[in-house]
């Protein structure tokens, strides 16, 4: 399904979702691999967020399946995603408001294999080392994104653009092969937008990126491939150039009857 060069990480296969009588998604199929940046776009109510939530296990598909090729499993719970090499940010910033920035980023390493209950309880050397490594790694990720100076602040006291970077830092802690960004551009000003775009391009070297976005000026130059949804169906898929000239897409966005 995915025509990216890398290893496939996520594949939706014939996914449908019904909420009661409402069909939110109908027979959706697309995939993402490492090394590519894929945009999921569509008018309001097209089913973008539902598609994201199905991919993360927050919503169960009524029909079809979500595959995670890296671990050869399907239909995982959200808390199993990191094992499948996937990390996701939430709309807005979605940070833990009562925890410091550093703790927020450390939370991203919550599923590391060492440092379980017993190691924590008795503070075994192994548990202590794991905690110290987690703290160091979190500081390194913050430094890599250029926001290490806010490490001991609470999320409520830092600017929105910085908080968005912190939420990316948290997602990076599990060393994902696919990063899912939910509306990364919303609420950012021009300067922050170009910074964010540069950051995403930089991340591509080691992982795939799947993003849901409204802001076409942000998406078009950034992505290699677009999946366009309308009324719960994939109406087009291809490079930004192809999609821009697709009649169905133009009609959907301009509201012209076909």
């Amino acid at each position, binding site marked *: 399904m995915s025509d990216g060069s890398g290893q496939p990480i996520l594949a939706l296969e014939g996914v449908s979702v019904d909420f009661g009588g409402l069909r939110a998604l109908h027979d959706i199929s697309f995939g993402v691999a490492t090394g590519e940046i894929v945009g999921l776009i569509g008018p309001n109510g097209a089913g973008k967020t539902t598609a994201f939530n199905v991919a993360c296990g*927050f919503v169960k598909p009524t029909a079809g399946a979500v595959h995670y090729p890296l671990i050869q499993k399907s239909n995982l719970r959200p808390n199993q995603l990191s094992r499948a090499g996937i990390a996701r940010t939430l709309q807005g910033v979605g940070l833990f408001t009562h925890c410091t920035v550093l703790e927020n980023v450390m939370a991203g390493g919550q599923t590391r294999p060492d440092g379980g209950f017993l190691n*924590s309880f008795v503070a075994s050397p192994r548990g202590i080392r794991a905690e110290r490594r987690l703290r160091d790694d979190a500081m390194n990720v913050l430094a890599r994104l250029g926001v290490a100076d806010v490490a001991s602040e609470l999320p409520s006291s830092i600017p929105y653009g910085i908080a968005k970077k912190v939420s990316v830092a948290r997602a990076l802690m599990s060393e994902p092969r696919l990063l899912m960004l939910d509306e990364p551009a919303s609420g950012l000003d021009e300067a922050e937008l170009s910074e964010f775009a540069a950051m995403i391009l930089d991340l591509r070297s080691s992982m795939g990126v799947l993003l849901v976005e409204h802001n076409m000026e942000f998406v078009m130059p950034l992505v290699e491939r677009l999946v366009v949804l309308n009324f719960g169906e994939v109406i087009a898929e291809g490079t930004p150039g192809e999609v821009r000239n697709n009649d169905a897409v133009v009609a959907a966005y301009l509201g012209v009857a076909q």
Partner: protein
Amino acid sequence: MNRQRSPRGLSAAGIVIAVAVLSLLVTPSVRDGVALAILMMLTVTSALILLPSELRRARPVLTRAATSTMVVSVTLVATFFFSSTTDFNLATGAAMAVTLVGLSFLTGVSGQVSIGNGAFMGVGAFTMAIWSNHHATTPIAVTLLLSVVAGALVGFLLGLPATRLRGPYLAGMTLAFAVAFPAILTYFNSWTGGDGGLQLPNAANPPHWLNALFVHGTSSLTSSTLWLTDITIVAAGVAFFFMANLFSSRVGRAMRLVRDNEVAAELVGVNLNRTRVLAFVISSAYAALGGALWTFLNNSVTPATYSFALSIVILSVIVIGGIGTIPGALIGGLVYAYSTNVINWITNQTGLNPQGNFASQLNGIIFGGLLIVTMMLAPRGVAGVYYTLRRQRASKRGDVASPPKETYAEA
């Protein structure tokens, strides 16, 4: 004291002052209170000298271990010089503090309210009493561990609804257990001794390995029950060390994440149900240890002790001490232990009939009054006041680089 006062030192100093004021007010012998205050001051000062701030920052576990060891050993030495009443109060406070620190974790860190921790305490207390009556030769450490296991099991069963119930509904479920618990105990009277409760069979003598310290080598200072006090204090110190580890480790963090933002917590890989139930298991295991120590200290147990009222009192004193904090549990435990002395002191001073209507309600009046004052002036309790002051000092200095390891107190 160190000129560059450290937060930890301040916190310890706060506790020392609180203890000293309480002791001066109400201990039968003022000498004990003063001696206790001086000894605790000495502990804190030596802790500050021995553990410079760089070490405290770099090696938090070592710091925790050293602090618990020092506080416990100094208190142990002190018990040899105190009157048996002071010793008993201290040990009661220590046993209650173990229960409280478990509730502090459950409600303050994981954010789930339990009104049933008095009953969880009772589970440990009766496990202790029943097992001792059937197997008098079991070493005390093993019996205590059995009580903890029993508490953890009951906590697991009652924690299972936490996967489905939230907030007041979950609290209501724990309340039902607390209300039913004394009746359950009375129903199984062949095991629990019914309303009369149980006596511990081997209360009179310390274990043989303690004989040298408490019987042969004793001076006139040593009372016959001192060994009970000292075992309780050591057990509480160990329990506090482990709980401090949980608070600032990945386990405690998982609890805070779930409380703060369920969706985000799930996305970083936290299993919500497992985390919620684990908090219940830990809390009830600690409550059971507190109850077992209390039984051990009193040599007896009755169902009436573990009534619904106890659960309410437990919740009140941890709120007064500072819920979600570790020092708060210690303060709450001492407030509880000394409340009887305060009441006696009030009845003595005012000439009230101690058996009278008013005097018998004083307990509720004092805890209720303290609770109202706490909620109005310092919603996060005595320990919360200290954390607020410390943060204000830090921001005034512009010191934002302090490690965030104690942010659990902010929750």
